[in-house]
Structure formats: structure tokens, C-alpha cells
């Protein structure tokens, strides 16, 4: 990886929450570069600040201090409107609980996302890629958890974002389904050339990453480049 391929640069970011009279730091002066096309796993126990970091990367939240650059543009200076455009054009989210719209079909859920994007991918191609071509007219309630998560991934990918942010994507799934979802994410990373960031507390998932970042108590405690990531099918937990 070359330095000039930096997609996102996190520079000394802190996030403080005011809880009554106590100030809690969810992130403490975190700095981090994310490279184009990278597959990153951020590992940490709950409360470590990994979700906060993900939210800040995704333009869902703003840091209290520090800066975040997306292709040299400082997104921490963005107003609400610009942040919305940022989320719309550059980021795709995958959530632990899928968060699909219950009263839209699988295909409609994907369309909901692509309707407002300029460079959206062909929906049917993406649904095909996640293996849901024949389930696309089903409502979320008619789909299994794994299928729902695949719809969520399709929804995120079809926007054709620079960055795919996944918050515990396997957290609500059984082992087998989880592995399938991870393979899918890896495939997306390779076939669609998307930068993928996964946050999880599940250590073995780190083995498939190009780089593993460990977070604890709002700080990065370890950053490890994985020279030979293993294919997801070989992960076990």
C-alpha cells in the first residue's frame, strides 16, 4: 500500500460526551489512515469507542476535537447538508440488526438507497452478487437473518460508495451465516474494489483483514498489518 492511496485520514480525533456532571471520553486522540481498497477490522470490546469511531468515519457524528479527511477534504467542517451529501455519495452502512424498512421489499430497500445517488450500480447486478435474485420481492419479515443482512449489504454496495462501514455485521447471525456474510463482504472488497471497515468484538474475524486495529477505552492499542489474511471460510469461532 502506498501512502498516497489514503482514502480517509483520522487526525487526533476525540469524542467527549457530557453525562450529567461527568465528561466521558469515547475516543481519545485517535489517529488513523485508511487506504483505498483496504479491508480493515476494528476490534474492541463493547464500550471501547469503536462504534463512535465508525459513526465519525461515516459522517453520522462529528468529533469533539481533531479532524477527519476524506480525500483531503475535512469532513469535520461540514455542515449538516454537506454531511448528508457525504453519507449519500461516499459511505455505505451495514448494521448489526440490518435495519431494513419493514414495509419495503428487498429490492425496494435497495432502491430506497440508490434513488438518491448519482453513481448507483445496477440493482439487479448487486442483488445477484449477494445471491438474492430470486428473493428480491420478499419483505424483510419473509427473509432469514442472513438474507436480511445480505439485503442490507446490497443496499450499502449499490450506492457505489467509496467506503463500506459495517457495524457488527455478523453479530445477530449464527456462525455459518456469519461466515457467508463475511465472504460476501470480502467478495465486495475484491470484485467491486470497495474499502471495507468492519467493527466487531469477535477476534477471529480479524484474521481475514488486511489490517487489524485494536481499540480499548477510546484508544488504539494496536495496529497490525496482516501479511497473509486467511479466507473467511477458514475462520472459526
Amino acid at each position: 500500500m502506498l501512502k498516497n492511496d489514503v482514502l480517509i485520514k483520522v487526525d487526533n480525533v476525540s469524542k467527549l460526551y457530557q453525562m450529567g456532571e461527568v465528561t466521558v471520553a469515547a475516543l481519545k486522540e485517535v489517529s488513523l489512515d485508511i487506504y483505498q481498497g483496504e479491508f480493515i477490522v476494528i476490534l474492541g470490546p463493547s464500550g471501547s469507542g469503536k462504534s463512535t469511531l465508525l459513526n465519525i468515519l461515516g459522517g453520522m457524528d462529528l468529533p469533539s476535537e481533531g479532524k477527519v479527511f476524506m480525500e483531503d477534504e475535512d469532513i469535520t467542517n461540514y455542515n449538516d447538508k454537506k454531511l448528508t451529501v457525504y453519507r449519500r455519495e461516499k459511505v455505505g452502512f451495514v448494521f448489526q440488526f440490518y435495519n431494513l424498512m419493514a414495509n419495503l421489499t428487498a429490492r425496494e430497500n435497495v432502491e430506497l438507497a440508490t434513488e438518491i445517488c448519482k453513481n448507483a450500480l445496477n440493482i439487479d447486478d448487486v442483488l445477484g452478487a449477494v445471491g438474492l435474485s430470486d428473493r428480491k420481492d420478499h419483505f424483510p419479515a419473509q427473509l432469514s437473518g442472513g438474507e436480511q443482512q445480505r439485503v442490507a449489504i446490497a443496499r450499502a454496495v449499490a450506492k457505489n460508495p467509496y467506503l463500506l462501514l459495517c457495524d457488527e455485521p455478523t453479530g445477530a447471525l449464527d456462525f455459518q451465516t456469519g461466515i457467508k456474510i463475511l465472504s460476501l463482504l470480502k467478495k465486495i472488497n475484491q470484485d467491486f474494489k470497495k474499502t471495507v471497515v468492519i467493527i466487531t468484538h469477535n477476534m477471529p474475524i480479524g484474521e481475514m483483514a488486511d489490517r487489524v486495529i485494536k481499540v480499548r477505552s477510546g484508544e488504539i492499542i494496536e495496529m497490525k498489518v496482516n501479511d497473509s489474511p486467511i479466507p473467511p471460510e477458514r475462520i472459526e469461532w
Partner: protein
Amino acid sequence: MKKLDVRLLRMIKNSKGQFISISVMVILALTIYVSFSMVADNLYNTIYNYYDITNFGDVFVEVVRIPKAAIDHLYTIEGIEEAQGRISSDVPLRVADPNEKVRVRVVSLPKESGGINSIYTIYGGEIQEHGKTTAVLQQFFDARGMRLGDKITPYIAGREYPLDIVGVIGSPEYIYLMENEQSLLPAPEKFGVIYVTEDFAQSVFGFQGSYNEVTIKIKDEYLHDIDRIIEDIEEQLDRYGVRRSIKREDHLSHSMLMQEVDSLEVMSTAITLLFLIVAAVIINIMLSRIVKNDRMSIGVMKALGYNNFSILAHYTKFSLLIGLVGSIIGIILSIPLSGAFTNLYIYYFNIPMFEMQVYYIYIVYGILLTSIFCIISGLIGARSVLRILPADSMRPEAPKTGGRIWLEKIKPIWNRISFSWKMVIRNILRNKKRAAFLMLGIALTYGITMVPIFMSSVWGNMFMLHYGEFQTMEYNIDFTKPMNTNVIRELQQLIDVDYIEPKTEIPFELVNGWRKKVVSVIGVPKDTQFYNFTTPTGFRIDIPNSGVILAEGLANILGADIGDEILVKNFMPDIDDKYVEVKGITQQYLGINAYMNQEELNKLMEERGMVTGALLNSKDEVATKLRDIKNIGQVQSVTDMKNSFLEFMDTIIYSMGVMMLFGGILGFAIVYNVTVISISERIMEFSSLRVLGFDKKEIYKMVTRENALITFLGITIGIPLGYGLCVSMVQGLSTELYSIPVIINPNTYAITAISTIFFVIVAQLATMRKIYKLNLLDALKSRMS
């Protein structure tokens, strides 16, 4: 279609009960607004068109006797376009049943056709110059079931004059047919108008070459100056004994019609606003609930890059759609409805239909009004969308602080309450906003339902107070001309009388400063047994030796108070006007009169021992026995009044029912929607209860208990609210001629409460399905929207 819109439509489909119930309110609001506004305009135009066709006069002057030459002389007054004399006199009509009392107004028609107040022939022919023919006013003709060619027999100056009915006509003066200002209700079978030739009228009434009424048309450009012209007319005609002069706007039929049109407009606005406001509040609560439940979806939308505006618009479209659906259906309904209502009015009033128009402006106003209401309520309801931060929305919402409620601190009470009631009370007190709205809604339902129930007893009360307490005679007899007191003794010889009093009733114009009013001043014996004068606060007033007692309404019109000296202007050419002191102000619900000691009244007329009628109680057949007696003008019995009152009651039952229905719809919509909202907000809570072992019935019982408690509180608030609505209704309906007593029977409160509870129960049953359908365990498993 945009996927957000697809989602919206499916959202509506899932809450169709709410969508429909709110839409119904919007439909009603819009239908009432558009159709009533159009009816009012169409009616107004039709009436004025009719006035044009028939050349309805602008000023009507009643005189003692006026020669033709004096009428022609009126043209010297600037602004008078046309002046015309006629004879008009009320006389008894002979009918088959000797006990039935029917009166007709015999009106002369000018020799030349046309002129002012020309009649409008509905069918039949014109009256002939020679021969005894008459044209009869349609309402009277229909009410008495007459046919062309029938004979009717007015009894004029002691003689019967059989006349052939040759035509059935309408007149701009009698679109709303009432005998006089004192009549409470129209009674077309008891009072009618017949038209005869001028020659006939002049000869039978002894008015050769002269008249007792002048109808005047004023040039359009002088109409603004009508008061000045009337003064000139009165001055010029003074020596012919001006009894009174009436402007068109004070004309009985015209003013009743205008009141009808006005009340249509007032009603259309008031009901429309009420329904829209309630719909708006429900929309507001419903949308804020939907937004709250959709918190995570909103977070996802924001994460996907939807901006606040599109998300806000997404939810506001829900209410906009209610507005649009309501508007479209409302408009579709209102056009034929306004046609039907206009036709009904026109049929009722017997006027030829003018072009029925659709006034598109009301449709535009209606749509604007509903859209604005719906959009604003939608925006307010959904505004919390803006506050939802995408990052926060992914986390479940922190539980609400569930502290103790104040009632728990009062241990002696709280400890006695059972566990399930404790939950009920906690729920109510923790959702104060929702409970308050439900309470208010029930109070409003109670209030709205109370008005028609109260109104149905109003006329009865008024009747009872006027004819049972204020004046207690069974018969009120008028002579055809003033008589000597001896006539009372003669009457006692003719009929078996329990009690009899003479009365003197004379029209005067009472003047206080710049305010004036023509009324009948009634002279009664000092020890009258038939009148009970009381102050508005209920204290008895005796007839003073000198001075006058004014009816409360009259005192208001004149701005007169006790101790004021008012000018009593008579209509006799040679008698001076005199000042009289106001000695008392009495309550009089029906009509406005002034009362004096009979002897004092005679003094005003420079007479002694003069009576114009008698008041009496008798078990005798009074009407029959007095039928052919000379100089007996009219015999009015309270029983007759009661019967025409009962007939009138039948007609108001219908409008009462409509209003109750409105109250019911309102109540249903409020209770149904609030309950549905409350259930969907509490799925989690109910699910937990189910897990604890409560069954569906018990949960439903809990919700019902909450509503029952709130209903009870709502009715408690509804009672003073309903009272207030009734008072304002009464104030709105009271006219110069009658003031409505606010007497609310305990029955009214009870019936209203029963109706309200009924509406609540219906709404409650409609929500039962919702609870039984809830898959409570599913709700526990996922928190997704």
C-alpha cells in the same frame, strides 16, 4: 414511484383505520364548508333574484288612512322611485271546524299589474276586476289543502265574503310566512295571505279612494340615504297617522331569511373549524407517535443520505394525503349536496329557483384550508425527525424516567388501590399529554352532544315559562276596535268565565335619545292575575301606579334603565306624545312589550275606560261561542299555540339528530385514534405483561379501565363546557323578539353522558381487534421498525 412514497402508502395501509377515521372528519369539515357556503350564496342570489322579479319594496309604511293624492305627493321626496297604496288588514277566516281559529291578511292589489311587491303566480289565473275572486299565498293554500275553484270566506267587519280561489301565488313579502313579530313559529295552516282587487278591499273595509299602507321603492343610488328618506316620508305622512314604517332589512320575512342565510354561514365555519382542529390534533399526536416508533428507520434514512427535508416531507405527506383524500371526497359530496340543500330550502320557501351555481372559490378555499391544517399539523407532529441524530438513533432509546407519581405519596389512598388500577393510574399520569387530549376530546364530545339535547328542550322551556309563568291566561281576546270597559261584563254573559281581566294594547313608538322601537304597550289592571313581572334576577315587580315596565329585551334596545324618562310617541294625529318614567325591567322570553297600569295607558291616549281586548280563563268553548260576535277580532288560546309548537318540534328533531351524529363522529375519532396510538406505543409493555402471564383480555381490560377513568374525568370537564356552549348557542339564537332561557334539565346532563359513553364504547370496541391481533411475543424479539 419513489420508494419513500411506496413506504408511505404501505404505512397508510397498515393504519387504515386511523387514516379513514381522520379522513372522515376532514371530509365532513370540507363537505359542510363547501356545501353550506354554496347553499348560502345560492339562497341569497335566489332570494334577491326573486326580489328583482317581483320588485320587492324598500320601505313599508302603515298609516291609519291615506288618500291617493297624498301618496302621489310622496314623489316630491328626492330618491323615491315609486310609491303605491294598498289596503292590508287581518281578519278571521271561516273554516269548517268552528273551534279552529284561522286568520288571513287580506291585501289589495293595484289595478295595474306589476308595481311594487307584485305577486308571483305559481298556478291558476289572475283575479278578476269584477266578481269575488282571490289569489291565495301558496304556503297557506298547501297547508290547508285547498284547491283551485274552492271558496274561502273571510269575515270582514261583521260580514262573510265568500271568494273564489282563482290563483295560487308567491310574494316576496311572505317567503317566510309569519303573522307578526310576536309569532314564535310559522303556522301556515293558521295564518295566510289572500289577495283581492283594490275595489273589493276598499269597499269592504270602508276605504273608498284611500289606503292604509304605502309601499315605496327607492332609487338605487339613494339607498344609502334611506334613513333620511324615511324621516321625510314620516314627516310628510304624519297627519295620516303613521303607525310604523319598516325598512326592507327589518321586514319580517326578509330578516328571517337573512338570519337563516347568516346562520348557515356561521354554522359552516364553526363546524368546519372544530372538525379541522380536532383532526389536526389527532394527526399531530399520531405522527409524533409514528416518528417516535420509526426512530431507527429515520436513522437509517439519514445514514443512507436522506436529508431532513425529505424525511420530514415523507411523514408530512401522511397528513397531506389525509387532507387531499378528504378534500377530493368532500368536494365530490358537496356539489350534489349543496344542490339538494338549496332545492330543499327553495322548496320550503316557495321561491322560483334562480340558476344553481357551483362557486369554485369555496372549493379552492376548502382545499387550501384543509391542506394548510393538515400540513401544519403534520409538520408539528413530525418535527422531532429533525432532532433525531443518525448516530443516536441506532441505539435503543433510553427508558423514560419512571419516577413515582404524586398520588403514590398519599399512602392512605394509594395503598387501597388494587395493583391493576395502580398501573392504570400510573399510565395516565405518565402520558399526561395524551391523556389530556383524550380527556379534552371526550369533554368536547360531551359538549357538542349536549347542545342539541339542550336545544330540544329549549322551546319547551321557553313556551312553558312564557305561557305558564309570565302570562297565565288561557285565552287572549282582541276586539276589532277599542271598546268601553262594559264590554267585559257583556263577555261574561256570553261565556262561562272563571276569571277575566280587561286589557288595553296599543302600538307606540318608544324613544330614548336616538334609540327607538315600535312596540305594543299593554295596559293591565293594577292587580293583574295573569301577568307575573319579575326582574331578571327573579324578584317580583308590581305594576306601578304611573310609569312603565319594559321587557328586558326592549330595555336593551332602547338603552333604557330604571328611572329614565322615555318618550312615548303615539300614532294618532291629534294626540300629544308624552314622557313616561321606566319603573321596572321585567323578564320576557317571547316578544318584547312594555306594560303599564291600564288607566295610565288610557291617559296617554287621552281616553278613559277604554279596552282593546280581554284576558280570561274559562272551561267554556270560548272560540265557538265568540265566533259570530261582533267586534271580536281574534281569540288566541294557549292550546292552539301548544299544538303549533308540537308540530314545529317535529321539524327540529332532524337537525338535532344531525348534530348528535357530528358529536358522535368526533367522539369516535378521538377515542379510537388515541386508543390505537396508545396501544401501538405500548406494544413492548403489553408484551412484557403477556410474558408475566396476563392474558389478552386482562390487557384489554387495563386499556379499557384507563379510558373509562379518562371518560369520567372528560365528562366532568364536559359539563361546564357543554353549559358554556349552550349559553353561547342561546346568545347566538336570541333575537330582539325572543330571548331563550338557559334552563338545563338534569335529564339533559344524563342523556348527554349516556350518549358520550356510548360513543366511547363504540370506539373502544373498534380498537379491541387491534389488541387481539397484536403478536405480542414478536414485539419483544425485535425492535425494528
